[in-house]
């Protein structure tokens, strides 16, 4: 580690990061373009943002998305943390193998399959589609991401501390709250934010499981984008990117702080 980077290494890094960031940068720049044509630079303008402020349907979709993201990320954080605890702290229990299989499968399962199957379930039990069903769909997907994030933190944390507390007569719940929780808190926060942004981003699951009156922002953007490139969408996307970037930077700061704290204590 920390060897001198070869020229080839530097070029790979530079090209890799340029490939990842240039398209996003271009999109942000053109959201401030006065011209309707993408290739023509018509001068700096914020008129697409002004136009957004008047688009009430879009704002409603954004609010719906935020509501679903908060609700599903909260549920997913609770369920995912419990799942991570079950996988790392309960040793072997009957049904552990199918349990871990169910945790890892949704991470790679094509979303069209998950979306279709959830919709057919909701139809079978005659549950009206809308806010609730999209929230359930997002919770099911994102709890698995939370479980993996929290699990890897729990895995690197020595369980002898918890055992010591319990040997000294500390009840399990209190041990969890006073010993385990402070250590895994950064991973739980990171898991929540990951679940939140995945929910805010999802088109496929939401398209299958949504109903009247619960159009999410990605569904709305998607139906606009299918018709072609429009500067208003660049403006929506730029706001979206700004929100997510702030959230991610906060998350990484929290994680970093937590790790430093954990290492010091």
């Amino acid at each position, binding site marked *: 580690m920390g*060897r001198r980077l070869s020229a080839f290494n530097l070029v*790979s890094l530079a090209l890799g990061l340029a490939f990842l960031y240039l398209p996003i940068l271009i999109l942000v720049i053109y959201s401030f373009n006065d011209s309707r044509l993408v290739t023509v630079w018509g001068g700096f303008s914020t008129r697409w943002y002004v136009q957004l402020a008047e688009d009430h349907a879009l704002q409603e979709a954004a609010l719906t998305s935020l509501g679903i993201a908060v609700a599903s990320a909260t549920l997913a954080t609770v369920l995912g943390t419990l799942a991570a*605890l079950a996988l790392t702290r309960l040793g072997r229990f009957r049904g552990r193998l199918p349990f871990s299989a169910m*945790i890892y499968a949704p991470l790679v399962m094509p979303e069209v399959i998950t979306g279709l199957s959830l919709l057919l379930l909701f139809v079978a039990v005659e549950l009206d589609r809308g806010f609730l069903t999209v929230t359930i769909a997002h919770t099911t997907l994102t709890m698995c991401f939370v479980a993996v994030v929290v699990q890897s933190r729990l895995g690197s944390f020595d369980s002898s501390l918890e055992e010591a507390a319990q040997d000294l007569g500390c009840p399990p719940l209190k041990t969890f709250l006073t010993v385990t929780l402070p250590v895994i808190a950064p991973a739980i926060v990171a898991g929540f934010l990951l679940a939140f942004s995945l929910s805010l981003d999802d088109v496929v699951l939401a398209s299958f499981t949504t109903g009247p009156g619960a159009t999410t922002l990605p569904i709305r953007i998607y139906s606009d984008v299918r018709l072609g490139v429009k500067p208003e969408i660049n403006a929506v996307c730029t706001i979206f990117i700004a929100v997510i970037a702030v959230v991610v930077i906060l998350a990484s700061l929290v994680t970093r702080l937590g790790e430093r704290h954990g290492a010091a204590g």
Partner: protein
Amino acid sequence: MTEKSPALPHASPTASPDPSPRRSAGELLIVALPYLWLIAFFVVPFLIVAKISLSQTAIAQPPYTPVLDLAAGLDGLAAFVRELSTSTYALLASDDLYWLSYLKSLRVAVVSTAILLVIGVPIAHAMARAPARLQPLLVMLVMLPFWTAFLIRIYAWMTILQRDGLLNGLLHTLGLIDQPITWLATDTAVHIGIVYSYLPFMVLPLYASFQKLDESLIEAAADLGCPRWKAFWLVMLPQVVPGIAAGSLLCLIPITGEFVIPDLLGGSDTMMIGQTLWSEFFANKDWPVASAIAVVLLVLLVGPIAAYEALQSRAMDGRR
């Protein structure tokens, strides 16, 4: 549910061998909540898909027949089973549309994964060799685009690749082309979009492998007169096979069922299977055929998914 392994490494002599009843109840709850949730919303839905794939399309609500009538008791069940048919699967097998769609998905997934490996290995290797204090920053820089909405990133490429878009503008300015090239609505655009979207999924597992690598082995090989590229190939690559496998599976499996990227960037000639499923469901309202497509796709992917799960469990258990 709460059998403990008999020899816990840290178990102290004072710890009671049997967990107290209260602890068992708590442990049961920890397992039961996520377990039941996943059974209800992940496993049961698949069973329903399998069931409906054996039904026939009907103009009704819900748009398939037979419908299982539990109120009719055993007679209802018997009538239901009699009416099940494999006609949807016969249709899938007989119509070229579906075969070509599956083949195209597999081809796009394999080609994209290969491109991702070729691009991902040098990036991950460079990240792992960077100064240690820079590495968390580099990891975050690679992660960040993954967090900024996937849909937005595909949209960004539409701006670049459209006929009067930036790529053609750039190529024209450089004097490389006279006529604009059609990028959008081609397979090239689909591959670009997929490689762009999935790059973090390839780079991060590779980086984790490269980071654990013992580079002194390469130097030893170099000292013994082995050319550097050969040392990379013979000494280094075998050590990062788990990362290569994890990254490849993490990309290959979801790409096979990808819908949004080919829908926005691809042409209308041959659809990927995710698009075919989507249009059977949303445009043709043929729920049984859409379900059968999903079942066959799942059967195709069950091997790779099992391999991915085995790798993932081993990685997680190895950390403890």
